């Protein structure tokens, strides 16, 4: 997190030096600062920073991809002449336990194919998820555990 601030500082310095605070220039400065930090990664211990940044990026990419996929699936299902629906609510045992991570996971689940988080239990151990195709809840559970939950744990642990 500290290195992140250093990187922003480097980007601002670049903006100051080149005399322009336009978005493109600041992003360029940020990339330059990242390159500089990458060069001295052994000295300042920024190796973890790049791994973490990469994981956050891959989480964001997974999220956008799943959102597009899920909207597409909803579209196909809605437009098909006879909808073969098997909706239902299943319980999902949470492995993440921090409030922030639970919120993120619940939001990600809502925006992914056919699932919508409805409620979380009082002791924060179970998430209740509405699935539009609930014929095989076990494989849906496995998908969430192997996809988003694992990525969240990688990115924020």
């Amino acid at each position, binding site marked *: 997190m500290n290195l992140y601030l250093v990187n922003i500082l480097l980007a601002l310095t670049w903006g100051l030096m080149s005399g322009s605070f336009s978005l493109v220039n600041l992003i360029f400065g940020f990339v330059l600062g990242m390159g500089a930090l990458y060069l001295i990664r052994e000295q300042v211990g920024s190796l973890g920073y790049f791994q973490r940044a990469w994981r956050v990026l891959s989480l964001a990419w997974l999220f956008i991809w799943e959102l597009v996929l*899920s909207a597409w699936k909803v579209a196909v299902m809605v437009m098909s002449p006879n909808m073969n629906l098997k909706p239902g609510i299943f319980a999902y045992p949470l492995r993440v336990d921090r409030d922030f991570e639970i919120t993120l996971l619940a939001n990600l689940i*809502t925006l992914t194919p056919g699932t919508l988080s409805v409620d979380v239990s009082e002791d924060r151990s179970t998430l*209740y998820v509405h699935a539009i195709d609930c014929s095989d*809840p076990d494989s849906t559970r496995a998908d969430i555990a192997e996809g988003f939950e694992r990525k969240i744990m990688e990115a924020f642990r």
Partner: protein
Amino acid sequence: MIEILSNYLTGALLIIGSAFAVVAAIGINRLPDVYSRMHAASKAGTLGSGVMLIALAIYAQDTGTTLRALAGVVFFLLTAPISSHLLAKAAYAVGYPMWKGTVLDEMPPDSRIGADD
């Protein structure tokens, strides 16, 4: 050159976004119960308006506008799940029934208000 490209991209994104909006609207008319309809509104609806704002961001080619449009997209992506989650929870808690074809309901029995009296 960039302007030509951005024009084509903007047009394509506009059509894609509005197509998703239509699909979401058809979805909330065809799906059987309020919980299933939420799937259509929260996914296709959000993606629809998000894609159209991205089209505006690409078209504007001006840092302030682009940034604000992208901030708006992020904002919608963050709030859409929260509002549909809260609505689903409220609807379930006060006892709006699920569709009769529902195959599974693992919600704890005490989560409906007044279920125990």
